[in-house]
């Protein structure tokens, strides 16, 4: 059986200047990770005060990144936020109430300047030109690293805490994640088999956060077992043939798309009727910090259900 390996990776965070979740070539990712490290070292050496100063006193925070938008809206008082990206106004991505006074930016420097933010949060990849221009104009810009695995997620939350200071919600989330990660993953040859079937027959293999969550929860990810690195493609025939004990769908989009035909195929009805399915929330894809803890807990519970089954 041949499991198709996708050549392209996928940007976890949508570009605020575009609508779709466009892919990023893996080779670019490696270069960008290198650049990120270089940037971190440069910032650490050149601007130690800027990197280490907590920003709890910030009163006018703006964001150029969808994930940062959502985290700010969840954990920071609304009156302290001046702008988030336009994507946060879209129903696909909105997870927290959107205060009316917020300016919805499209990652243009000129949009943010009149708002006079004292802190601009941005992600690792998107809106780089705007953030560089804002820095040149003297605004304080902090890049929060993206998270593609649990270790990076911890690092992301830590960077966020460093930038925003002590926030109860953020501290609680870090604590929960830490506690879950301290539980040793249940590795056993009897681990129930799981397989992710996402839109357009995409599955998640080794090196992806989704794979790590499955294995941490005590499942064997069949895609990774078949050698899929990062993203791969899985046909319905392969799903049936590999007989996963848990079939994991991704996202809860109800709008029609040909991309969802596979998961609506009658051949999977048996899985759905038997409750042998789990649905990863869509926000795990664009902002794992919002959902990873909850997903890990739910997957652990799902495992108990499956293992307990005769």
């Amino acid at each position, binding site marked *: 059986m041949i499991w198709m390996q996708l050549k392209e990776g996928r940007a976890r965070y949508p570009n605020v200047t575009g609508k779709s979740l466009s892919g990023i070539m893996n080779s670019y990712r490696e270069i960008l990770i290198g650049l990120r490290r270089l940037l971190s070292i440069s910032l650490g050496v050149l601007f130690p005060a800027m990197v280490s100063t907590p920003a709890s006193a910030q009163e006018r925070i703006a964001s150029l990144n969808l994930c940062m938008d959502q985290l700010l809206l969840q954990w920071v008082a609304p009156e302290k936020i001046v702008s988030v990206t336009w994507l946060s106004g879209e129903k696909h991505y909105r997870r927290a109430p959107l205060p009316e006074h917020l300016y919805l930016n499209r990652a243009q420097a000129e949009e943010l300047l009149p708002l006079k933010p004292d802190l601009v949060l941005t992600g690792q990849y998107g809106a780089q030109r705007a953030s560089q221009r804002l820095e040149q104009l003297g605004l304080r810009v902090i890049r929060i690293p993206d998270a593609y695995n649990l270790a990076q997620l911890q690092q992301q939350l830590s960077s966020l805490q460093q930038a925003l200071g002590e926030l109860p919600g953020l501290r609680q989330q870090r604590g929960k994640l830490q506690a879950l990660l301290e539980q040793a993953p249940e590795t056993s040859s009897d681990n129930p088999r799981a397989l992710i079937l996402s839109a357009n027959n995409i599955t998640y293999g080794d090196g992806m956060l989704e794979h790590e969550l499955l294995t941490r929860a005590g499942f064997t990810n069949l895609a990774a077992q078949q050698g899929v690195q990062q993203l791969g493609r899985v046909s319905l025939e392969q799903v*049936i*043939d590999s007989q996963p004990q848990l079939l994991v769908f991704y996202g809860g989009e109800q*709008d029609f*798309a040909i*991309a969802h*035909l596979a998961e609506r195929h*009658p*051949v999977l009805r048996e899985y759905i009727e038997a409750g042998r399915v789990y649905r990863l929330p869509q926000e795990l894809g664009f902002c794992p910090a919002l959902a990873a803890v909850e997903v890990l807990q739910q997957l652990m519970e799902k495992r108990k259900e499956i293992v307990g089954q005769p």
Partner: protein
Amino acid sequence: MLANRNLILLLIVCTLPIALIAALSSGPVSINLVAAIADGWHSDSSDAVILWQLRLPRAVLAIVVGAALGLGGAAMQGMLRNPLAEPALLGVSSGAALAAILVLYYGAAVSGYLLPLLAIVGALLAVGSVWLLAGHGASASRLVLAGVAINAFLSALMALALNYAPSMFAMQEIVFWLLGSLANRGWDQVLLALPFIVIGAIFLFLSRNYLRALSLGEASAASLGFSGRRYPLLVLFGIAFAVGASVAVAGTIGFIGLVVPHLMRPLVGQDPGRLLWVSALAGALLLLLADVLVLNTVGAQELRIGAVTAFIGAPFFFWLIVRSRQGGNL
């Protein structure tokens, strides 16, 4: 000569079951076909589920859609008396696809018979527009001009509709609507399309003598008792039912309606009535073989079936042009 023609037709008939076996044997998973057949429809074994629930409906859909497109192409060429008439080329498929896009992406009905019905209405409007715009007995160039204009306009509307569709996947799915696909299809899609394709085939069967008479010219057809609008409308509805229902479940698959009637015409002695059924048979075979090719092509993504049929169809166009330059008629 007649014996040779019948031999070729017999060969097509015999090749269809062989192609079906090839389609049922093709796929990313290696299955024991004989054991899966023996296990039967209700078996829970992986091989049986793959065969009966995944491969067979896909192969049946390829046969049904291929037959509908071959039939639609033959009827269009007969009615417009033009060798360039083809549902995908002249905007009929685009009309159906636009209607299907509006139904599916804007939430009117994800399932149910509203989808093929509205696709049929879309196809009907498009084929009617081409017919009216080109006029009776239009020259090849005028017909192509009218068809291309309508096709371009409808394609632009498709892009517009997908651009504003609520699903974030919609825009990239224009590839499906322009090139078609049989991936992830099941019995539900077969049952959705089949009744309407059968109705379309019945309409075209009833109009077979009109198409024969029309090959002598409109005046001759009228003198033979085929005057009035009844028969042209019957053909239009037949084409719209066959092509519309196909596009609703498989997207636009081009060139089958163009190539197949041309290849089959000499085998039926230029008889437009017999051409309908032979084109349906050959269309089914061609699409099934194209799908076998798709299933056996290795790649990160499944090759679009419309691309495969275009690979067959485009050289055929070249041949048509070369032949016309050498003095033959199009």
